């Protein structure tokens, strides 16, 4: 996208809302070195998110959107769930398709943008919850990996169907009690990061969003590898503080606990991915 698109007609400027003017004047466009360190100074691409106060998902959104290397050329495909509540507030081209078909829709978009704009990078990023990724959308998700679609898939794992009122999902750990797991969930958490590796993803990371800088690094790596090699997958722990009975200020504490156990930082790179990451480091982009 031309950065001119973000220029507001001078004659209309006085009628524009301040947030739109800020998007032109204070957002970080056209700079692949942008990152979470810009957050205190730059206009963010997410405006007044509609999630619960203190929701770690909102932090994940802010870090991811601050880290996209080329936001002016990034399409985000989401899926139904808490995460989809945020998309009307995001200053990018976004798609809210159905529940679970996000990776299929993203495949169609990415393939089309590849031949429509052969000389440009058009990044397609999927952001979907654990229900959309691990349960209802597992087929479309894994199949997009099998087909080696050049898209980045980010799963916001809060280990529960939060938006529908707190039912267990495939990502819920065994034994946890939720509304459709009376007496506790009877089978294990699906190791989606491992399925992603086995299904052909070239870069896979598992982490919580307790460290903004770490999120920035994995997002950038995943997007660069997807551009040049093939599918990449990021599994983020974004706990639902509401459903696990925590207060608005306890999300970070919760994530730091899980950093030590089931969301311990884990990263996988194929040989091709390692080369891309090495090259990007040499270019100063990572």
């Amino acid at each position, binding site marked *: 996208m031309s950065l001119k698109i973000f220029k507001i007609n001078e004659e209309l400027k006085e009628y524009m809302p301040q947030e739109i003017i800020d998007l032109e004047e204070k957002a970080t466009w056209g700079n692949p070195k942008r990152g979470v360190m810009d957050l205190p100074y730059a206009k963010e691409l997410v405006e007044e998110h509609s999630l619960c106060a203190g929701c770690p998902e909102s932090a994940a959104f802010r870090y991811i959107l601050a880290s996209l290397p080329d936001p002016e050329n990034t399409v985000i495909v989401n899926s139904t769930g808490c995460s989809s509540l945020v998309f009307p507030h995001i200053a990018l081209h976004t798609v809210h398709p159905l529940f679970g078909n996000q990776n299929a829709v993203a495949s169609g978009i990415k393939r089309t943008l590849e031949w429509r704009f052969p000389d440009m990078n058009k990044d397609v990023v999927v952001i979907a919850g654990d229900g959309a990724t691990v349960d209802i959308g597992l087929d479309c998700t894994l*199949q997009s990996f099998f087909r080696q679609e050049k898209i980045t898939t980010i799963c916001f794992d809060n280990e529960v169907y939060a938006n529908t009122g707190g039912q267990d999902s495939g990502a819920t750990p065994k034994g946890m009690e939720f509304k459709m797991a009376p007496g506790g969930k009877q089978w294990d958490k699906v190791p989606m990061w491992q399925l992603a590796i086995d299904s052909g993803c070239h870069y896979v990371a598992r982490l919580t969003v307790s460290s903004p800088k770490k999120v920035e690094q994995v997002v950038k790596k995943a997007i660069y590898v997807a551009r040049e090699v093939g599918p990449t997958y990021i599994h983020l722990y974004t706990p639902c503080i509401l459903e696990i009975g925590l207060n608005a200020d306890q999300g970070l504490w919760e994530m730091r606990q899980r950093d030590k156990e089931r969301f311990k930082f884990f990263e996988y790179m194929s040989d091709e991915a390692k080369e891309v990451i090495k090259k990007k480091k040499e270019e100063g982009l990572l």
Partner: protein
Amino acid sequence: MPEQQRPEQKVVEPEYLLLEAPRERKFITGSQAFAEAVKRANVDVAIAYPITPQSETMHLVGDLYAQGYVKDYYRAEEEYGAMSAIAGAVRGGARAFSATSGPGLLRGLEAIVSWPGHRIPAVLGVMTRVVNAPLSIQPDNIEIAYLLHSGLIVLHAENQQDVFDFTLAGFAISEKVDVYLPVVVATEGFFVTHAKGYVDLPPDDLKLPPRDPYKAPVPPTDCEIPPARIQRDAPVQKSNFMSYLIHAVWQQEVWSSNRRAAKWIKHYLGGLIEVVNPDAEVFIVASGCAAAQGREAQRYATMEGLNVGLVKVKSLRPFPEKELREVLKNAKAVIVPEHNIVGWLAKEVKAVIPNSGIVVDGPRVYGGMTLPVELIMDEIYKAFGIKKERKTVV
């Protein structure tokens, strides 16, 4: 595929390709007719999942991809994924074609019926097949009933010629700025898809102009146009009140667009209906293959001196409400032969004429049986009060 490897085809306007270009008669199957239309339609992307009897069509479209007529093609994971990827490709700016059938259509239905609301101008071939248990793979068309209330434009092809014309016109109609909706071209599996018929084809070195995704009532999702903040999908997330309102006005617009397609169907396909013998006393109203059998019954009846007419319904959505009221205003009886058990077309006809008592429910065959002309003749005799002994051969 690089541009230089693409077959040379001259771009012509749809009016020329459909209505004026010289045509040569070929003897081809319905599946081949779909592919011949795709070949001339400047299609960018084709994605589908195998199912009987649709597969052959998408094999042929795959051949077109191998020859460079289509830019991208793959066998999808299943119909839900196929129809979702079609939606993605069209959002991204492509012209797309897919096809499905019976149970596959139902599996992809959530995605397919979201296309109108998401304003996805694609063309979908539907080769009808039994749905529900017990299993049969034969051409029962009950599945069309599921498509009528979704905002899709639904055309029903009688034969191989219709398949070609409706599909090619479908691309032109679906992308009109005042329409911008997906077009379904339905036809009976096997009877049309696997049987050969005469099809008059324009030259294959001509093609439709490419899709211009910016000539559109909604923007493509390609990061090339302002505003930056684009979510084409109604943002239910803003508030419940706004979601009611947005959904309501958006769906009103979808159905208005659907009605606006009527003028383009008339323009490219000569009308929503075809009438044989408009001064008839008794009419057969039928669509798809049933119209072919109805056409034969009308011919037999005329030979027997009975004043019978035929109304072939080409467009099920938009439905030819006014046209049917006008043609049937003096009818004594209206016979509606169908290839399904529920009689969706009979219900549609009853709903649009003031004297629905004249509508004869049937004859109907289902499970994929053929529709013998004799069954329609029986109803014609009944309508005229003629008693016929039927010889039973055991």
